[in-house]
């Protein structure tokens, strides 16, 4: 049905000149038996076409929940988006009717996950699952849909695509499966791709293949890419900008070179120092003491203060404001000067 695309082009408030994707003050909480877990507490992000934004942080920092909120695939209950907006070209996706939201999800913003095996339906061939997308969203004929499925598998470098299109997901290796999922995500030419830990389950040599494939596809399509990961190494290789999350907040956002060279938040700095390096042996790793906070019971003030080497009284009492320390750099740390060493 081509009218899906037509409808998406006529969304009220759609402004082609507006930023591709912009998240403002997003709040998400999980209401569970054990209390309210505040998973996302005021996240701001933006993304331009052709740009790679990496969202990094440890488990429980809210990076995946943010992605799911952008996609509109959170399970409610227990998850509730309690505030903020997700603007796609000026249209707030959070206020869109469900049918339009679904359309945006497949056609404009797509997502790939860590676990490709469970994201693909085991009882259908990958060709059928790909063709289904064209048939449902584009009204393509069976034949044409199949042809485009082969073409897509070819694009994600699956060898012998013409034959493999009739294979089932379990017949693909981990890396090939991830390629199939990328093909599914890109089938309808989205403008934004969100990749949630896309290579975490893969071996390093395969990871390198997948990351270079993603980079290449992104270049070809001038697509905006949000890469969600915990791996500071992968990020250093591919990202343009990085948003570091801690306890449901973006604590620092910076162009990739600045972030690694001069981290502007105590957490970023400590995180970078605690990673073992491939390129030199190094002495005892410096350690971030303690544990990430429980989301049901966040510390007062700056959520990182109980683990922070720079923390003083003010960190416990007041949440740090967002300081703009350079044109594209924002950091929320009371002691940004000390951390930067200026």
């Amino acid at each position: 049905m081509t009218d899906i695309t037509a409808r998406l082009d006529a969304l009220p408030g759609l402004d082609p000149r507006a930023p591709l994707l912009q998240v403002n003050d997003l709040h998400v909480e999980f209401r569970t038996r054990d209390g309210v877990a505040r998973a996302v507490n005021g996240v701001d992000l933006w993304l331009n076409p052709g740009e790679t934004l990496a969202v990094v942080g440890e488990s429980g920092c809210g990076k995946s929940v943010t992605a799911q909120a952008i996609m509109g695939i959170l399970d409610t209950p227990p998850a509730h988006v309690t505030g903020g907006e997700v603007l796609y070209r000026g249209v707030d996706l959070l206020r869109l009717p469900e049918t339009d939201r679904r359309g945006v999800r497949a056609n404009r913003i797509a997502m790939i996950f860590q676990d490709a095996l469970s994201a693909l339906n085991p009882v259908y061939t990958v060709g059928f699952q790909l063709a289904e997308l064209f048939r449902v969203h584009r009204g393509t004929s069976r034949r044409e849909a199949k042809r485009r499925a082969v073409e897509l598998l070819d694009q994600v470098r699956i060898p012998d695509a013409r034959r493999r299109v009739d294979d089932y997901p379990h017949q693909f290796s981990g890396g090939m499966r991830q390629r199939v999922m990328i093909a599914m995500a890109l089938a309808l030419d989205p403008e934004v791709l969100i990749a949630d830990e896309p290579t975490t389950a893969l071996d390093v040599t395969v990871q390198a293949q997948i990351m270079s494939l993603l980079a290449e596809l992104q270049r070809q399509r001038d697509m905006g890419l949000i890469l969600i990961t915990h791996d500071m190494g992968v990020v250093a290789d591919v990202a343009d900008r990085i948003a570091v999350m801690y306890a449901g907040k973006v604590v620092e956002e910076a162009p990739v070179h600045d972030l690694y060279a001069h981290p502007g938040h105590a957490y970023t700095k400590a995180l970078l120092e605690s990673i073992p390096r491939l390129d030199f042996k190094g002495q005892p790793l410096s350690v971030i003491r303690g544990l990430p906070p429980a989301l049901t019971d966040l510390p007062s003030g700056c959520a990182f203060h109980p683990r922070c080497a720079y923390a003083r009284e003010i960190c416990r009492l007041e949440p740090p404001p967002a300081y703009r320390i350079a044109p594209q750099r924002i950091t929320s740390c009371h002691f940004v000067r000390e951390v930067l060493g200026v």
Partner: protein
Amino acid sequence: MSDVVLETRGLVKHFPARRGAVRAVDGVDLHLRRGETLGVVGESGCGKSTLARLLVALEKPTRGEIRVRGEDLTRLKGAALRRARRNIQMVLQDPYTSLNPRMTVGAIIGEPYDIHPDAVPRTGKARAVQELLDIVGLNPDHLNRYPHQFSGGQRQRIGIARALALRPEIIVCDEPVSALDVSIQAQVINLLEGLQRELGLSYVFIAHDLSVVRHISDRVAVMYLGKIVETGDHAAIYEQPTHPYTQALLSAVPVPDPRLRGRRDHIMLEGEVPSPADPPSGCRFRTRCWKAQPACADHEPLLEIRQRSPHPSACHFAEIRDVMRRF
């Protein structure tokens, strides 16, 4: 070498499969000296986890010997095997599944003493358990809690305490930090290093993360499809790798430094690891290797010191290539 605490010779483990066998470990010789850490790296399917299970006698090898202080572990049974187990223990990968959820921390750490009553220190079991908790950096008062009340890093500490209870000389660590967050990884790695210094432990440290292995290891063995393809001290492996697989592996590891973008030696391997049920003839890496010649299919390269490889390397065309250098 009198200070070798663990040695394997021709270690082979084949698992029966529908047709033929999965050759998980296919002729591994290694040794571990007192107080050192041997890192074993490789991708999934290389047999490193099976090797770990063989070393702690969870699996019986198809062939070969495992000598712990000169005694062949594979020939021991019953009480003798149980006694031998006291000297070689393992820390498992997943701290969430490796602790019985229905036992208190005290019961988990105390269980080694229930199984080996003669290993209980003179001060008594309760005291010993508290000391172990203290050693791994947990509050000794927490012995009545259950595993789910602890975070991943703390649980891994509990697993380490359990492995230490019988005062082993050797600890096999099977991906001990791969399930942990970055900031917690560092805590556990530092703990393992501290324990090694204090207690004179020897580690076999199995991991897929080459950065972590470099950090903790004295020597490194690189595995591919059931075989060690290259081994040497950490500087030899990381700065002067001679096997193409090691070189490719190292070049694929992302380094957290964006200044190195485009300035590193990137070797992009084709395809994925072949199935260990049907490994390629001759050199097993030849199907993905850019140096492969027809001879590689016929002659299996032995793991030995070669003209252009100052340390043992299983490649006919072994040659140093410093993939870590920056352009």
